[in-house]
């Protein structure tokens, strides 16, 4: 029962495997024939550079490639849905290939023409994980191209138009606006510098005026084009009768501009156009940073993304590739190993071993018999089966669940409103201050100073600093999150994260590894006779743990047993061949466990003698226990699972006593549980889940975090996606988001000090343009710098990756 320690790494994919089972070629070792064949294929085509660029760059080739898998791609109806452009000779299309992860991938995919002479060119967009391919219709076909990609381990994710919401594209218009604002800022600054330091000379006065008018002309498009988003957003918020941060910004911009126009046209001053262009530039830059979320991940997924595009429909005994949306009632179709069943149907032929974990969170494989109803979303883990459609795609169980209106509801989570509230108080404060000083000078009788004071207060106390500190800090934190493989939908999620009080976890796939639990035996060697007896006894037990041991023992036949007694949930006793067998939990047999492996244990005693124990190991993810220990200090935790309660005792060891554990939860119940927490305790709830069964709960929660088990796996719709191996950092990530609040506050205070200095002069009506021009960039740049170094420092202290 001992596994060999002699393990080596596969040259292709880097997986560890045992030496005695290796496949080799050219003195290189591979874990499987799939990896080896990819190597040989690359070698043949002189593409072994692939292995020089990065160590073990390949993808593990798990499955045999089925010959007819992509036969459906020959159907023109399906082709039309995938192809972007086609004429007589050429076809253009883009594939989404989630496996792209390093420069080797890039190298191989751009050299794909060497495998298939029909491919004219391929161009990789690394950030979006896409390949754009042009091929010649006469020399190759769509099916061939896809098969070539699959052969080298880069199976594209095919999805039909309209089903896939494409990942967010970045906003090119924002880049143009930033570019123009920067251009105007630099030019106006140069003209203004000349103005600030010019000696008062009557000859140069004309030149000075020319500079000012030039600045004025340049600043008009800054205001009307670059800053247009601020005005639009401000107008929108006023229409909805509330004040957001853009309202005071728009006000400040208008006043700055009109005052500058007034000063320049009356030649009473130089205006603040340089400051205005500068602040617009920095604010736009901050928004750009904040909006830079990862482009290769899609946060809005429909469950149809998880389904195959087409299946083989049987017509007169022959398989015809058919779109799943065209499957009609009573159609017979085939499903192969590892494929997902797209419609509710009835098994008509073959052995169905179904994995429902994605749909309802059950971790056990369900074996369906012929004639049994099978729900859409199950994954067939056995071999090929034939099924009869019961309901077309549009009417299946998952579809109905999905179209539940509650699934589409997403309330504004309230954090943006909080920020807007600050903006409101800020605006009121500034207006009060401005009109206060206005009134003061009015009663003093200083009418000239009066107007001056009002406008400069509004200009200097511009809420831009507030906006800058927020956008830059969020931008930096977003970047740090991404380095730790935690991807969020948008920057608002950061502040929502910092509010979280209660965290709800799903079990299957989220805190446990996906896949069958493995059974191990510890103890003295069992005689064949004893194995048979144990098998026979356990086959009478209904407990799921017994089923696992049964499949482990793998005996042919079960003997009939006359005398046995099962105590539900604890164990079974029986007399067989004049021997007394007692099997069950540690307490039931009355002993102590000899192993410290986590999992369900079945201890075996024959005639009162402890023989050994079977351990059904639960594959909890690494670091889960430590994570729970850290999280319980700050948050309330709950674990919901659609699975049975076999793991109750093990879970209890992982979490504290207050943690609520709920088993046998349907997707609906999970969603209701979150809703209850929100309504009864009115606490912000975070849901961490992975499967479709969590989709409702993920949407209902304040922050839904989907766990991504493999680089290329698909996650349900959520606010954030976390890589499975980063899950143990979840507590640090939440703390970093909480830290962002204080970073924003302090950077704001620091920049406010600059502004107050300016304000001191402004209220007296003596703020010179030079001081304004110096204060503005210093304040902006110090905000950017402080938030950058501070957020990195915080992340480092929390033990997160910063590079």
């Amino acid at each position, binding site marked *: 029962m001992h596994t060999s320690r002699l393990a080596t790494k596969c040259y292709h994919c880097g997986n560890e495997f045992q030496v005695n089972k290796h496949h080799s070629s050219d003195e290189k070792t591979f874990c499987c024939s799939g990896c080896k064949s990819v190597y040989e294929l690359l070698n043949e085509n002189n593409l072994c550079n692939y292995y020089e660029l990065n160590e073990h760059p390949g993808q593990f080739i798990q499955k045999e490639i089925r010959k007819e898998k992509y036969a459906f791609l020959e159907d023109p109806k399906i082709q039309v849905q995938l192809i972007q452009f086609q004429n007589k000779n050429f076809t253009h299309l883009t594939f989404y290939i989630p496996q792209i992860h390093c420069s080797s991938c890039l190298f191989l995919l751009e050299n794909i023409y060497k495998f298939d002479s029909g491919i004219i060119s391929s161009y990789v967009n690394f950030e*979006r994980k896409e390949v754009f391919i042009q091929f010649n219709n006469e020399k190759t076909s769509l099916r061939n191209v896809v098969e070539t990609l699959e052969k080298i381990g880069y199976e594209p994710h095919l999805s039909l138009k309209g089903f896939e919401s494409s990942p967010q594209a970045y906003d090119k218009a924002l*880049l143009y606006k930033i570019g123009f604002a920067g251009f105007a800022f630099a030019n106006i600054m140069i003209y203004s510098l000349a103005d600030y330091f010019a000696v008062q000379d009557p000859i140069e006065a004309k030149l000075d005026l020319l500079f000012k008018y030039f600045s004025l002309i340049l600043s008009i498009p800054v205001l009307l084009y670059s800053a247009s988003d601020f005005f639009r957003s401000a107008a929108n918020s006023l229409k909805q009768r509330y004040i957001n941060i853009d309202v005071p910004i728009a006000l400040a911009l208008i006043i700055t501009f009109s005052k500058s126009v007034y000063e320049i046209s009356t030649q009473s001053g130089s205006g603040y156009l340089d400051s205005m262009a500068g602040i617009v530039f920095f604010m736009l830059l901050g928004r750009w940073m904040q909006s830079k979320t990862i482009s290769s991940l899609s946060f809005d997924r429909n469950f149809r993304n998880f389904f195959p595009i087409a299946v083989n429909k049987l017509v007169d005994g022959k398989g015809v590739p058919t779109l799943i949306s065209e499957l009609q009632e009573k159609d017979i179709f085939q499903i192969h190993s590892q494929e997902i069943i797209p419609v509710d149907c009835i098994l008509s032929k073959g052995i169905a071993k179904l994995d429902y974990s994605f749909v309802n969170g059950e971790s056990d494989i369900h074996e369906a018999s012929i004639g049994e109803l099978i729900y859409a979303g199950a994954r067939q883990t056995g071999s090929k089966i034939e099924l009869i459609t019961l309901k077309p795609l549009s009417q299946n169980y998952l579809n109905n669940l999905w179209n539940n209106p509650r699934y589409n509801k997403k309330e504004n989570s309230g954090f943006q409103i909080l920020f807007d509230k600050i903006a409101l108080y800020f605006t009121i404060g500034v207006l009060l201050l401005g009109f206060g000083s206005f009134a003061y000078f009015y009663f003093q009788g200083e009418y000239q100073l009066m107007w001056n004071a009002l406008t400069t207060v509004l200009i200097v106390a511009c809420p831009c600093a507030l906006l800058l500190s927020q956008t830059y800090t969020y931008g930096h934190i977003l970047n740090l999150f991404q380095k730790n493989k935690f991807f969020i939908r948008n920057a608002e999620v950061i502040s929502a994260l910092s509010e979280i009080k209660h965290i709800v976890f799903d079990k299957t796939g989220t805190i446990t590894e996906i896949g069958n639990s493995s059974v191990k035996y510890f103890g003295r060697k069992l005689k064949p006779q004893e194995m048979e007896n144990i098998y026979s006894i356990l086959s009478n037990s209904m407990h799921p743990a017994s089923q696992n041991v049964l499949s482990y023992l793998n005996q042919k036949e079960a003997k009939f047993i006359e005398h046995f007694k099962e105590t539900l949930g604890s164990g079974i006793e029986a007399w067989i061949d004049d021997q007394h067998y007692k099997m069950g939990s540690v307490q039931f047999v009355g002993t102590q466990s000899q192993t410290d492996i986590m999992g369900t244990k079945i201890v075996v005693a024959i005639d009162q003698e402890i023989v050994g124990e079977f351990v059904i190991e639960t594959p909890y993810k690494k670091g889960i226990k430590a994570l729970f220990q850290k999280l319980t200090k700050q948050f309330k935790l709950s674990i919901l699972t659609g699975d049975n309660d076999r793991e109750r005792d093990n879970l209890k060891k992982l979490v504290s006593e207050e943690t609520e554990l709920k088993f046998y939860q349907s997707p609906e119940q999970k969603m209701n549980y979150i809703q209850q927490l929100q309504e009864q305790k009115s606490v912000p709830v975070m849901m961490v889940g992975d499967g479709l069964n969590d989709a409702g709960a993920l949407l209902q929660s304040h922050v839904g975090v989907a766990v991504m088990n493999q680089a290329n796996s698909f996650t349900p719709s959520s606010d954030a996606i976390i890589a499975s191996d980063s899950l143990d950092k979840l507590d640090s990530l939440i703390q970093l988001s909480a830290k962002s609040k204080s970073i924003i506050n302090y950077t704001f205070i620091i920049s406010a000090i600059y502004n107050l200095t300016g304000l001191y002069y402004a209220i007296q009506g003596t703020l010179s343009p030079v001081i304004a021009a110096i204060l503005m960039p210093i304040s902006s740049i110090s905000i950017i710098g402080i938030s950058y170094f501070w957020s990195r420092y915080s992340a480092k202290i929390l033990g997160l990756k910063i590079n």
Partner: protein
Amino acid sequence: MSVIIILLCVSFLISLGFLFSFFWSVKDGQYDDSVSPANKILFDTKNIKNVKK
């Protein structure tokens, strides 16, 4: 004085040139993918050698 005006116009035109080259690069999709171009440059040369074999 006229020297400065010429200077002003020339410097403005030059900066305008940079602005348009920036617009051009955005439109051309230079900011679509910031990872692959740096890598593509590296393995292109080796590739040609392989072809010549």
